[in-house]
């Protein structure tokens, strides 16, 4: 029954209030001494037995203040008015625990981020701090001692994405002796790096340093490699994820196939390879993306295979020495049980066709950087010869344009980190292989890491002509004599201070990096969030770049933002280290903030049954009662608020606590002015 009358019952709790100066961060705007005195006098009737203010509550001395008071004054509740709970809630909870008080009987009140730093009126800020402390005190009265819920951690790990970041993470974990499932969407692992020819600044051949790692992954006893597969569903929580993976049909029996490649030779159907050859080269209907592919089993492209079109051909089946071809192989659904997940899903390159005034897709001899990588690659369509679109003529003048689609309000605002160095690499390669004149059109030359700038100076010494200016247009409309048959780059040379029209034979667009086209869906699938343009959001941009808000889900490489290969590798290793840390713990303490159904009160009305995206809520037909699986429950409290009978109890954020906090914030139960002595 809704009881209305009756004054507040006498408070039995013994509460300690601690107001932090935080140097001048709080004390600069809030009269902390006055807030402490106010709490001691006006909240005495609400159980406050001691109220102190101290310069740095989070310091060890500050924490000792709390511990001493708990022991000597027998405090049963602690309220700390300081910075944000996201920073030091754990600090003060552990301090209370050290003094024998259950950590969940401590409540933090934010008077820095939400008061002193955002208000200027000192008096109003002090009143607001008093209200916040009163809210905290009223709330903490209703806190209960809670024990964290421990769940076992499954030592297996899922790595999504077989690029260099994913490979590094997989090897680190597998070498540490734990099982790793790697799921890769393409037929082979290797990611974008496998498409490159040389890497900057060392000019190592990309394949030479990548393929050994790929082979390690392919052959590692602790790794189950699933290429040509995609994650379809993720359920569960940290330590106990169950992941549904669809292994798309390769139409090749991997147990029999030896990777000899005869089927690729004999297959009559030639198709433009959009992915690996970036549209410059061809592949067959049955193919492995590149010779050093791992795994080496080919994949049948059903959209272009003649058999699937007209039911004829079957050349691959005829010539396969181990008859490993199986046309009616079906997709296979596999469920993996893993403890942690690392997302290393990589990036997409910017679609250069969107910059219509650079003419990519209209003017034959305009290439993107990925196409240039294939041109310079010995295993590429032109066996490493840098030639024009006709496949024969060697260019005499090449223009390389930086920041295509990056640092541009019309397209991508961000700087894509690697295009400057990549463009310098191309300049060097063109010099080395063709002796052509090379122009680099840049707005700012960004060469920040080790040996990067030295590489830039070396390219300058080789005679590359640097023009500082944003290219306005690439056109084949000749105007001045000597421009016939050439591509003219119209640019304002900001150092020379004049417009220039530079005729070249070939233009290379250094396109930027951007998030995967489907990064939003992927984020939703794994329960993490994306930034506005699509990069995965890390737990903290500076201090926690590989973790996410969701426990047990980590991110590495370009999925988190544009970066170069060394950074991707180190993030892969960092994510692996975090996972190994979790595995070492064997079990994990989950926040005890959960929901639970009070059975006698539940009338089985089933209003709550459909409200939980983590399917923690199950209905028992026999007893006509609902039950919540505490391990699956993430503690969001939506069902607690929705239950019409008030039969679902939410620890940590129950109704009494929030209603009391409201009364406290509105200063309803403040004792009257102390009579001046």
């Amino acid at each position, binding site marked *: 029954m809704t009881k209305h009358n009756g004054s507040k019952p006498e408070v039995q709790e013994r509460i300690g209030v601690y107001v932090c100066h935080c140097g001048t961060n709080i004390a600069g705007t809030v009269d902390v001494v006055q807030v402490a005195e106010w709490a001691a006098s006006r909240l005495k009737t609400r159980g406050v037995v001691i109220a102190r203010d101290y310069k740095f509550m989070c310091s060890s001395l500050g924490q000792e203040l709390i511990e001493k008071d708990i022991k000597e004054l027998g405090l049963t509740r602690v309220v700390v008015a300081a910075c*944000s*709970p*996201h920073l030091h809630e754990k600090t003060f909870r552990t301090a209370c625990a050290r003094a024998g008080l259950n950590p969940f009987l401590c409540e933090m009140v*934010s008077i*820095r*981020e*939400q*008061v002193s*730093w*955002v*208000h*200027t*009126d000192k008096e*109003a*800020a002090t*009143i*607001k701090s008093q*209200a*916040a402390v009163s*809210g905290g005190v009223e709330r903490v009265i209703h806190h209960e001692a809670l024990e964290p819920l421990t769940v076992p951690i499954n030592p297996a790990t899922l790595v999504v994405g077989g690029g260099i970041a994913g490979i590094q993470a997989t090897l680190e974990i597998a070498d540490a002796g734990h099982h790793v499932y790697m799921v890769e969407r393409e037929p082979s692992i290797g990611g974008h790096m496998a498409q490159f020819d040389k890497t900057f600044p060392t000019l190592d051949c990309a394949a030479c340093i990548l393929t050994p790692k790929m082979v390690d992954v392919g052959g590692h006893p602790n790794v189950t490699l699933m290429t040509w597969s995609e994650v379809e569903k993720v359920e569960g929580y940290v330590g106990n994820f169950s992941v549904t993976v669809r292994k798309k049909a390769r139409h090749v029996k991997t147990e029999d196939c030896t990777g000899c490649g005869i089927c690729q030779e004999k297959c009559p159907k030639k198709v433009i390879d959009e992915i690996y050859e970036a549209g410059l080269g061809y592949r067959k209907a049955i193919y492995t993306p590149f010779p050093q592919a791992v795994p080496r089993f080919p994949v049948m492209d059903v959209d272009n295979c003649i058999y699937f079109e007209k039911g004829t051909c079957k050349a691959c089946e005829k010539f396969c020495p181990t008859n490993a071809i199986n046309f009616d192989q079906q997709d296979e659904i596999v469920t993996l049980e893993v403890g942690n997940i690392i997302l290393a899903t990589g990036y997409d390159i910017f679609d250069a066709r969107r910059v219509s005034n650079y003419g990519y897709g209209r003017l034959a001899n305009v290439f993107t950087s990925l196409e240039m990588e294939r041109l310079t690659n010995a295993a590429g369509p032109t066996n490493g010869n840098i030639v024009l679109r006709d496949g024969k003529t060697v260019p005499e003048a090449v223009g390389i344009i930086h920041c295509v689609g990056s640092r541009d309000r019309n397209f991508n605002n961000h700087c894509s980190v690697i295009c400057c160095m990549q463009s310098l690499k191309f300049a060097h390669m063109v010099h080395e292989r063709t002796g052509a004149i090379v122009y680099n059109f840049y707005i700012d030359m960004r060469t920040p890491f080790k040996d990067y700038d030295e590489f830039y100076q070396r390219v300058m010494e080789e005679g590359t002509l640097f023009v500082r200016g944003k290219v306005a247009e690439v056109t084949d409309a000749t105007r001045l004599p000597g421009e016939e048959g050439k591509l003219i780059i119209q640019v304002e040379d900001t150092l020379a201070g004049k417009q220039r029209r530079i005729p070249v034979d070939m233009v290379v667009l250094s396109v930027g990096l951007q998030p995967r086209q489907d990064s939003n869906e992927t984020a*939703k699938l794994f*329960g993490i*969030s*994306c*930034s506005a343009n699509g990069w995965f*959001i890390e737990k903290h941009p500076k201090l926690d770049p590989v973790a996410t*808000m*969701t426990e047990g889900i980590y991110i590495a490489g370009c999925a988190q933002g544009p970066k170069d290969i060394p950074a991707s590798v180190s993030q892969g290793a960092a994510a692996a280290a975090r996972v190994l840390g979790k595995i070492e713990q064997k079990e994990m303490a989950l926040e005890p*903030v959960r929901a639970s159904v009070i059975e006698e009160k539940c009338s089985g009305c089933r209003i709550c049954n459909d*409200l939980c*995206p*983590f399917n923690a809520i199950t209905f028992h037909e026999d007893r006509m009662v609902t039950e919540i699986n505490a391990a699956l429950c*993430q*503690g*969001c*409290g*939506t069902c*607690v*608020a*929705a239950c019409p009978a008030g039969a679902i109890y*939410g620890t*940590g*954020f129950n*109704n009494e606590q*929030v*209603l009391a*906090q*409201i*009364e406290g*914030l*509105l200063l*309803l139960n403040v004792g009257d002015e102390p009579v001046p002595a």
Partner: protein
Amino acid sequence: MNNNEIFEPTIIGFTCNWCSYRAADLAGTARIKYPPNIRLIRLMCSGRLDPTFVFKALASGADGVMITGCHPGECHYLEQNYKALRRFHLIRRTLKGFGVEPGRVKLVWASAAEGAKFASETAVFIEEIRALGPLHWGKSNGYTPFGGKPPEFEPAPESPEEVPA
């Protein structure tokens, strides 16, 4: 409320731990100033918001309530802010039945990166409530809440004698 002439509203704000509370924190670290009239309560998710909290705040002296959470589609718990959205609509309709201007309860989505937006939306809402004037549920010109001293209630001016025969 201090009794000088400008009315300083008191507003209770409900924030969700993962987005709008962090937006408020970010407004702090970025030192973005906004008026002190709002007092924030941290819930785990905007889905935890119970209409009881809104009515309790309004009945206990708040002049306005601001409900904040992650943008639809970006909820840390995937879709729970949609339930907050649905409840918000029904809360406003019910409050209209109580004669409360719907403008006194506002829903604002703010992601963890939108400290500036949180501060500006708060400042705008405070001015909107200042325009609507004090709510002071149950109190009117010193009258004790809900009953107590019966008012002198004399609707009829003239006495029965003037009634024509």
